């Protein structure tokens, strides 16, 4: 969830379940990755980390730690020099307000 609760407001908002934040599907094409680590470093939600699986190019591609944290900002896609990662929005039953522009 993208919900951040600061300390002084302790209560979970009543509409916390209802707010429609986009849900992401993260796709990594391991063999394209050359292991530069940009996606891991620049992800604002710290969704990715280095995996221990070596790929064809001898690099360690990223792996997803927590897909639900992804805010679909698309920065990993934009920054990847090898086109090895992209995100798409999960189509859930209620529809996603958050994904209008993708």
């Amino acid at each position, binding site marked *: 969830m993208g919900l951040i609760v600061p300390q002084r407001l302790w209560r979970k908002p*009543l509409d916390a379940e209802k707010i429609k934040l986009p849900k992401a599907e993260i796709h990594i094409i391991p063999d394209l990755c050359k292991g530069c680590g940009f996606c891991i470093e620049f992800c604002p939600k710290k969704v990715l980390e280095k995996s221990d699986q070596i790929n064809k190019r001898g690099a360690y591609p990223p792996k997803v730690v927590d897909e639900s944290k992804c805010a679909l900002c698309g920065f990993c896609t934009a920054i990847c020099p090898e086109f090895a990662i992209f995100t798409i929005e999960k189509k859930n039953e209620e529809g996603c307000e*958050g994904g209008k522009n993708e």
Partner: protein
Amino acid sequence: MANEEKVDKEEPRIGVYVCHCGLNIAGTVNCEEVAKFASTLPQVVIAKDNRYTCSDQGQELIKNDIKEHKLNRVVVASCSPRLHEPTFRKACEEAGLNKYLFEMANIREQCSWVHLHDKEAATDKAKDLVRAAVAKAALLEPEIETEVSITRKALVIGGGVAGIQAALDLADTGYKVYLVEKEPSIGGRMAQIDKTFPTMDCSICILAPKMSDVGHHPNIELLTNSEVQEVKGYIGNFKVKVLKRPRYVTDDCSACNDCSAVCPIAAPNEFDVGLATRKAIYTPFAQAVPSTYIIDREICLNKEGVMTCDKCIKACERQAIDFDMKPQTLDLEVGTIIVATGADVYNPSSLQNYGYTRHPNVITSLEFERLINAGGPSGGNLIRPSDMKIPKSVAFIQCVGSRSKKGNLYCSNVCCMNTIKDSLLIKEHWPDVKIYVFYVDIRAFGKGFEDLYRRAKEEGVIFIRGLPAEVAEDRKTSNLWLIGENTLQKEIYKVNVGMVILSVGIEPCQDSNVIQRLFTLSRTSDGFFMEAHPKLRPVDTPTGGVFLAGCAESPKDIKDSVTQASAAAARAGILMAQGKVTVEAITPEPIPENCQVCGLCAQVCPYNAIIVDKESKLVEVIEAACAGCGTCGAECQFDALHMRHFTNAQILSQIDALTEEDADKKIIAFCCNWCAYAGADFAGVSRMQYPPNVRIIRTMCSGRVSPKFVEHAFARGAGAVLVAGCHPGDCHYIDANNQTQKRVERLWKKMDRLRVDKDRLQLLWASAAEGERVASKVRDMQAVLNELSPEEVEKSKKAFEGS
């Protein structure tokens, strides 16, 4: 003025007027005898006693005598100078006498009223006080007050209903107003509240038009998301630095909400007390002014230097989003300032027995306001946070955080009526909900309040006297058990309800200390800002040109806040309409012949009003910045600062006069004008009785009390000396009383060294409201006097000889 200069050289011709004040003074003090005594004092030309000196006839008498007997000094022995000094000064001025040639002896608040049953001692004390006043009067000098111009612009701090009203009033009068608000929108607490008591008006419906007026007023510059960082200057000429934090959205924003809809980051909305969510780009509420959205960079994905998300930028048709906005510091020049910084609500999570934050269905009254509000998170449905259902019964607990040592000692003023209003709101929507109100006292004191209380009782709201000792949760149902004692029926109750609303009190703002420091204000023991006079100057502060409005001064309801705001605007308007003001001529004048350019005076000045140039050996006093506390004069070892109207020579002459007879049986007390002297006056007004052996000398600040005054008193054989000032942190001259403490501590050390009994010098911190503290200190010190041996007095006389 020519004749004023002449006075300086002329032999003093003093007139003394001893007032009976009906029987207030004459009932205890033999005024005739005091007047007769006064006529024997040196340089006294005439001495009279009359019934009411402050009456028109009394003043006419003084004016005539000034002309007829060529008086050039006037002494009135009557009430406190804090009350009637301005009256008599004006009378002197009207007769052509400089007002600084007037002196007063306080023989009512500090004599007749506190020694009601000892007529002889009271009369003796009155004589002493007159003798001291005459001694000082002989040394008085005419002073010319400087005139200061007033910038015709105002600053209002805080955009709650009080700040809004004050800003609108001033702007409508025609003055330019800067309204500074730290939140993204103005509106304050009133915008959060659903309905107002006792009329049940919709709060935001009556506030929104005013907010919009502020936004559109040509004379108001609205600075939201901004904070005052620095205040310099003085009445009429303040220089204020305001930090305007960036919104990252320009004024082109049309508040269409397209950006917010696509923003992937959500957080609890502060405006809804965390009961609803908002996005990282948001507006706090629908009626916000300005309506421009704002980006919360704390949670936005885009950090400084790295732009990862551009959803809002792409969604904004008007291209109003600008992540490159930087904080701005604005320099404002204003003549008057209104502090309307409002209040916070009490946080009940520290009261463990009520279970707030442990039990989801225990909510605060502010959370209730958002729940019952149609624009709130539940669409106006009073739902329980645990299961989102409307409860069948609710309980209000009153005085949460008020009137108790566990929270704050004071009554928060609005909670009783707020609960009564809330109970009626519940009855209006859900008549079947059973409502309990657990209270200590119901305070329904205002216009229309009792009617509302009666209506609530008629609607079936159950009022039970006695707060619950504990709120326990039923695990299965999340219902709550309230256990306590009904103090009217002396019965234990155990009540089960679906929801508990804690009627939380009002607290001073967390950043009050910042505002206090910026404006050198004082706060009462409750933490709210203190007015210049609780009755007659209720919106002024001790700092000239700074006024108070709303809950910053004390807990109050909307009507009182608005009333006070209009009053503050009027007070500020008076200054700006006149365009100039005179400042009291009590500032120091450097005496270059004596000055060693040591720079100690500049070091102790709380206002940085003294500039010492060691190279050119010049000491300059910036008169407009100086407030006249005199702590520089007390620090100076070389008699190089002439403290106008409170000169060393004048104060020493008062000490001499008071120690002329039976010095060893007397306490010489130095009291600061604002706290200790006012506290002694308060003891008089309250008729607190204490021993008649104390003789009070008034200084503006306890920081004026030079160690040599104390030493001189001992050298003259005084039995004991008291130095009294404001509580640390409450000094009216920022922190000048820190110097008082240091000096007294140094004196104690010296007394130790000289083997003089240290108990004979005492230090007291007493506020203007602590008359009993002053009285009990005098009683304590009387015990010291009783123990005093003639040898001890001789020893101290010798030890401090020549001081």
